[in-house]
C-alpha cells in the first residue's frame, strides 16, 4: 500500500480523506492540488472542492496527462465477455489480419495465407513457391514474370485481376482480395 503523503501541518489527512474519483487513481497527480488539499479539513464536501480546484489546474499542469495508466478494475465499464472476445481476436489479428485465398490453376484445393506476415514481394513469392511447389520467373516491369509458366496475379478491390508486383507493397496489401497462380499464357 502506498504511503500517504504527510503534509506540513503534520496531520495525515490523506489517509482519512474521501474524494470523488475513479477507482485506482493512485495519488494526487498534480502538485498544486495536493497543497490545496492539505489546508482543508478532510470532509466529504472537500471532494467537490478538490475537483474544482484541480480542474483549473488541468490547463497549466498539462504535463501530467496522461500518466502511465495501470489497468483499473472495472474500468472502462465494458463487460468482460466483450473485452475478451476482442482480445482473443486481436491476438490473432496482430500478426494475422489479412488472410486471403490463394488458388493455383490445376490444384484441387485453395489455400489461405496471411499477407501481414510478409514484408515484401520476394518474401511473399517465396512462400507461394514453397506452398505450391513451383518456381516463379524473374519480375520485370516491362515483361512481367519471365522464365516460368506460372504468373502470380491478384484480384483487387475493383474486381480486376492484376499482376503481382506492379504497385508498392503497402498498396498491394491493402487492395489485394485474393491471389491466383496462373499457369501458361492467358
Amino acid at each position, binding site marked *: *500500500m502506498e504511503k500517504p503523503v504527510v503534509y506540513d501541518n503534520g496531520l495525515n489527512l*490523506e*489517509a*482519512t*480523506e*474521501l*474524494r*470523488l*474519483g*475513479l*477507482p*485506482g*487513481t*493512485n495519488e494526487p497527480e498534480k502538485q498544486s492540488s495536493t497543497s490545496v488539499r492539505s489546508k482543508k479539513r478532510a*470532509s*466529504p*464536501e472537500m*471532494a*467537490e*472542492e478538490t*475537483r*474544482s480546484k484541480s*480542474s483549473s489546474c*488541468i*490547463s497549466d499542469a498539462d504535463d501530467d*496527462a*496522461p500518466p502511465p*495508466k495501470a*489497468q*483499473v*478494475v*472495472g*474500468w*472502462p*465499464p*465494458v*463487460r*468482460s*465477455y*466483450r*473485452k475478451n*472476445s*476482442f482480445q482473443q*481476436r*486481436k491476438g490473432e*489479428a496482430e500478426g494475422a489480419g489479412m*488472410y486471403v*485465398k490463394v*488458388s493455383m490453376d490445376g*490444384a*484441387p*484445393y*485453395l489455400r*489461405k495465407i496471411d499477407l501481414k506476415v510478409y514484408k515484401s514481394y520476394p518474401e511473399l513469392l517465396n512462400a507461394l513457391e514453397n506452398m505450391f511447389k513451383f518456381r516463379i520467373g524473374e519480375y520485370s516491369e516491362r515483361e512481367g514474370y519471365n522464365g516460368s509458366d506460372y504468373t502470380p496475379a491478384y484480384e483487387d478491390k475493383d474486381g480486376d485481376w492484376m499482376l503481382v508486383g506492379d504497385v508498392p507493397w503497402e498498396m498491394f496489401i491493402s487492395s489485394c*482480395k485474393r491471389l491466383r497462380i496462373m499457369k501458361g499464357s492467358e
Partner: protein
Amino acid sequence: MSEDRNEMPEPEVDTRRREIAGVLTGEFQSPSPDQVLENVLENVLLFLTSRRDRNAVSLVCKSWYRAEALTRSDLFIGNCYAVSPRRAIERFRRVRSVVLKGKPRFADFNLMPPNWGAYFTPWVTAMATSYPWLEKVYLKRMFVTDRDLELLAQSFPAFKELVLVCCDGFGTSGLAGIASKCRQLRVLDLIEDEVTDDEVDWISCFPESGTCLESLIFDCIECPINFEALERLVARSPSLRKLRLNRYVSIGQLYRLMIRAPQLTHLGSGSFSSSDIVAQGDQEPDYISAFAACKSLVCLSGFREIIPDYLPAIYPVCANLTSLNFSYANINTEQLKSVICHCHKLQIFWVLDSVCDEGLQAVAATCKELRELRVFPIDAREDSEGPVSEVGLQAISEGCRKLQSILYFCQRMTNAAVIAMSKNCPDLVVFRLCIMGRHRPDHITGEPMDEGFGAIVMNCKKLTRLAISGLLTDKAFSYIGKYGKLVRTLLSRQGCEEIARAMPGLVVEVIRNENEEDKDGFEILYMYRSLERPRIDAPEFVTILQHQKESLSLASLPSSIRLSIVIIRREIWLVCWYAEWQQQQEEEEEGEEGEKAKLIIKVGSDCALE
C-alpha cells in the same frame, strides 16, 4: 408427473364462482354482498396488467388487497433480497410468470467477488410446490445451478419460457434437462450467460416429435454444438421465429438453417465466417438468396468472427431491418457504409468503433428512424487510439433526431457535441457517454465536461438515465439538480449510515474485494431496501453494516433505492445511484412530469450496457 398436478387444491376464486353459479340456478343462498363484490373485483382485476396499477389497487383496502393478490399472475422482484420467497409466495398464490433480478449492475464489470449470492435455489424450491401453473421464468444476474434447472423442468408441466440474462452457475447438462422435460417449451433464451461446457449434447435433447419452439437464443454459449441435431431441430420447429446461434456455427451451416427457416424474424448469424479449406470447384452456397428468402427478418445480429467478404449476403434484408447488431463485427468504414446505406428503417443499431466517425456519419445520413445507438470500443483501454470522437456524436445528433437512447465509448469528446445532441435529440431517455481516458477534459477547449452534461440534463426533458465521465467538477452535479445535492450527502460512510437510519428497511452491505495484484483491495458499499432480516447466505467477505426492521407491505414501498459506492484506496467511485421506482421499471411512463425523481445517475462509469 403431470397427473399429480391435477390433484392440487383448487384456489378460492373457483369456489366463489361456483357460489355465484349456484345463485343463477336458484339452488343456493345468495352470497354476502362482500363476496359478490370481491368476486366482481377479481374479474375486473384480471385485466389489470401494470404493476403500478396493481400496487395502487392493493392499497385501497384489505379486500382489494386480497383480490389483487389472487389475480396477480406476473410477479416482478427487482432485487431477490428485497423479499423472501416465502413472503412473496404467501401473498401471490396464482403466479404464472416470475421475473427475478439478483446481483447489482457493477457485477458485470468484475467488481463483485464470486459467490456473493443471488441464488436461484431457494426461489425455485419454494415455487416448485407453490406455483404448479408456472409458465415463465426470467432471471437476471442470478446464480442458477444445474439442479435448479432440473427442478424447474420437473416441477412445472405447463412451463413455456425460460430467459436467463447475465446468469451463471449452470452448464449444458442443465440445459439438457430443460430441453428434454419441458414439453411445452416455447422460449429458451440464453443471453450473456456464462455456461459451462459439460460436454453434453443438449440440442439433441429436445423432443423428437415437433416442438413448439418460437425462440432459441444461445449466442453466448462458448462451446460447440451438435449441428446436425440443430438442423433437425429447426426443421421440426415450424413456429420458430427467433434463432440466435453461437460462434461455433459457420456461415455454411447458417445457410443450411436459413433455408429451413425462412420464417425467421430474428437471426443471430453465428460466426459469419467459413473454415479455411474450400475445395476448388465447390461453389459456396448462394447466401444472398438465403437472406432474400427471409422476408420477415427484422432483427439481425451475430457476426462473431466475420469475414467481411460475406457482408453483401445481407443486402437483401437491410431495407426491412429495424435492429442490427454489429457489436462483435470488426468492420471498417467502407464495409459498414456498404450495408448501412440500405437500412432506412433501422431503429436499433449496435456497432464497434472500428467503423470510425465516418461510419457514424453514414449512419446519420441514412438511419432517420434511429432510436437506440450503442458504439462499443474494440480496444477497451484508457490510452488506446479511439477511432470515434465528437465528430461522430455530432453527426448522429444531426441526422438521427428521434434518438432515445445512446451509449457511446470514445477517447475524446467536446462539450459542443454533447450540447448539440441535447438540442437536436429532445427525445433522449438514456444518455450514456463513456470517455475512456479518466478525467479527460474537452479535448479542444481543455475545459471540464460539465457544460455538456449540464445541457443534457437541462434540455432532455424525458431523461431518466444518465452516465457521465470525463473531467467533472461539482458544477456538473449542481446541474444535475435535486439529486446533485443528495449525492453530496452520500459521499461519506457517515452519510450512508445516516441515510440507512432514516430509511426503513435499508440493508447496507460492505463487500470487500481482494484484488490479487494489489493487496490493498477495495470496498463496495451496496445498499438496498429489504423487508427481511439480513440474508443468511452472505459470504464471509460481506459485512452487513446496519439494518432496521419495519413491517411494510410490498406495495407501500414507494421505491427501492439501490445505491452502490465503491471505495478504492480512499476514493469513492459512485458506481450506481438510482432511484428505482417499482412502477418505473422498464415501462413507459404516460403522463409523468419529468420529475428529477426518476433520474438515474451513474457517476464516473457504469456506462455499459444491457
